[in-house]
């Protein structure tokens, strides 16, 4: 059961979890975006490997889309946004990386604990893939919850979506049309978010979520 095919798939899927952890560890925006590109690259490799061992050609297309959009276009676009907003040098104040990583480890444990008993019948590869994918999704959510900067939120969201694609690649038989539509919707989401970021910035002179919160508090009074 533990052949080389399994080992590589395990390695790549696990690599995505590790990349998610690296995202949690970063506190500079440009580094965060670079790691996100790495995250997507690992996803491309993982999906590509799944395509190879499952002999499913449409997965190559998925991998290709991911490579172009997520590993190249979106990071580039985000870099540009960050530079235009003039926040590429700001350090995000993170409330304790250690605590975040501890929570992340607990989430990984939770993901595995939930997934493995549920999927007891399936083969080892799909089980592990699903567990790791859920872990990546949860870590993406954690990133979104713990960060204050809107750009980090976007990165968290994108990494979450990477987790979904990983799950889809592991579970056989996701139609290509769905894949492509997801990919495009994500791209559109990016554009919309980008536009909003600039609008927010015009209004508040900041993309710090706290600024918006204080604004809302002010309105409520």
């Amino acid at each position, binding site marked *: 059961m533990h052949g080389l095919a399994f080992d590589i798939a395990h390695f790549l899927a696990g690599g995505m979890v590790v990349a998610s952890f690296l995202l949690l560890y970063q506190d500079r925006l440009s580094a965060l975006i670079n790691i996100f590109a790495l995250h997507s690259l690992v996803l491309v490799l993982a999906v590509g490997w799944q395509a190879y061992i499952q002999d499913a050609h449409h997965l190559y297309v998925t991998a290709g889309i991911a490579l172009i959009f997520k590993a190249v276009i979106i990071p580039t676009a985000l870099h540009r946004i960050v530079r235009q907003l003039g926040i590429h040098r700001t350090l995000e104040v993170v409330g304790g990386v*250690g605590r975040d990583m501890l929570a992340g480890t607990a989430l990984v444990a939770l993901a595995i*604990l939930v997934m493995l008993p549920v999927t007891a019948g399936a083969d080892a590869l799909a089980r592990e893939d699903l567990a790791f994918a859920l872990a990546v999704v949860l870590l993406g959510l954690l990133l979104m919850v713990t960060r204050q900067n809107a750009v980090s939120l976007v990165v968290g969201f994108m990494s979450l979506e990477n987790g979904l694609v990983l799950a889809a690649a592991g579970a056989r038989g996701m139609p290509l049309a769905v894949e492509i539509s997801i990919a495009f919707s994500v791209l559109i989401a990016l554009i919309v978010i980008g536009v909003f970021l600039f609008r927010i910035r015009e209004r508040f002179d900041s993309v710090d979520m706290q600024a918006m919160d204080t604004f809302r508090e002010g309105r409520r009074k």
Partner: protein
Amino acid sequence: MPAGVRFATMSLPLLLGLPMLLLAVGVYAIAAAQRPEGGRQVYGIALFACVVLLALALGHLLAGRAPTTLTLPLGLPWLGAHFRLDALAAFFLIVVNLGGAVASLFALGYGQHERAPERVLPFFPAFLAGMNLVLLADDAFTFLFAWEFMSLSSWALVMAHHQEPANARAGYLYLVMACFGTLALLLAFGLLAGPDGGYGFAAIRAGTTSPGFAALVLVLTLLGAGSKAGLVPLHVWLPLAHPAAPSHVSALMSGVMTKVAVYGFIRIVFDLLGEPALWWWGGLVLALGGITAVLGVLYALMQHDLKRLLAYHTVENIGIIFIGLGLALAFQANQMYASAALALTAALFHVLNHSLFKSLLFLGTGAVLTATGERDMERLGGLIHPMPWTALAFLIGSAAISALPPLNGFVSEWLTFQAILISPELPQWLLKFLVPAVGALLALSAALAATCFVKAFGITFLGRPRSPAAAGAVETDRYSLSALFVLAALCLLAGILPGLVVDGLAPVVSLLNGGARLMAQHDRPWLTLVPVVDVKSTYNGLLVLLFMTLSGFTAAFLIHRLASNAARRGPAWDCGFPDANPAFQYTAGSFAQPIRRVFGSIVFQARERVMMPPPGDLRPARFEVKLRDPVWERGYAPVAHAVVALSSRFNYLQYLTIRRYLSLVFGALVVLLLGMVLWR
């Protein structure tokens, strides 16, 4: 009748006679306390009794004798007082009486400085007798009686210096927690005995308990024995009460009485309850142990009072012991008896080790206290110069408790790690996650313990004196020193010959573990410790010590011979800073500052504030640290508030008329009768 058998039948009465002797000494001490030689007499007899008890128990354990029982017509008329000596009791008798003997030896010197001997001398032998009787008891009534006797006599010792307000509070809290613990144990025994009231341990062993009741017994035992041992969150009384007593009693309370509590847990859960029915028992104990270990050492790191630091550190070690016990329960629940044997051996080994080094450290603190009158580390320092021998013994104890090879603390932690490493075989998912997490907690607590004892030893004994009291210290007396070095030597011996200790523990382990034990270690080459053959992990403390000694001495010899042995004294360099005042040294608080920032901000919500007056202002700058105790604030304070609120609410009952009282009684009676009717 062969001599061995005769000895075996005789040993239990003899064993029981000695606690009686101790009790008698306690009574005698009431009269003798005022005489100058009274202390010597009392401690001398206590030393004698403990040594004989130790020898008898050691003989019983090493000869592998069968359990012997004895019933005395005391206590409840239909029950009598049952006593029994088996391997488990014998092992804990060794731990208790080793500690007792050394503490008595220390007190031969230390007791001379006691301000109020009439408050210590009568209770010291009584305390020892109580602990011995707990171990020998073979029915619930005797056990609880002895347990309570032990609690009360130690409470009296805590209150020996009751004039200090902090001690009075500590005593009060201790009394409340001790009563609570005994209540929990009482209920546990009630459930174990069942409706027929079979309170003898033999009857309980023979009977069966339904799974629900068994789980309840486990929880009650955790509450009862755990509160005495200091499991988080039941530890709050321990760091207040243990330091309040005179130091040789602190050594007994921390080093030995907590082990009696562990004995209570083992006796009830492993012996009386029989097989653990459910795997989560192990998980529960394991998780509690892990949390206790880390929290205990973090609390200890925040302390500046040497004795309180040691007391908090006891909490950590209890956590390590319970990690081993929890693993053993989890293994037993899955019928993995070979692995359970390893975990149990690790836990029992740590019981022995902790009793050795914790007694050593408390006694060392006693020596410091005699020499300087100070417990506050911020006012000590540089004691290695006037007290080199105490410093050496304290250093050995510190290294042992920090789990440094080749001393004994490392061996038991190593065994615990090995037990953790064979645990992926456990089938339950939750345990699969819990065990590595607890492993990380254990590793963290071991590393933090080293930090804690660098602080404890470094700030107290090294550097330069921070107060005149520390500068004027003199070396302690010979009795105290010999007590310290007996323990230090035992720490080293148990560290380099762990195989022999493991072999000594084997009968205890097989008693608790359905006959399974670790294989014999004494015939291994070079006395290497090989816990499990197919795991192939080995450790040899003897060789590590040998290699270290050889390489260290070779280096010293070659360098002094061939290179240079010249040395000159001069002022300290300190990067060119001249004539540094001793106040410029690192203090206990500043040493712990990085740890406080890294861990304390999460666990204790540590907040630091620096108030720097503006230039030209002559006020001194102030630095404030605020720590909050999460367990006390979240766990105990609400309960205490609720109790106070309730009692003030019911306070008005105190001022009612007699007619009102009568109507209350009448109402209660009617309600009870109604309840009976409805219940039917």
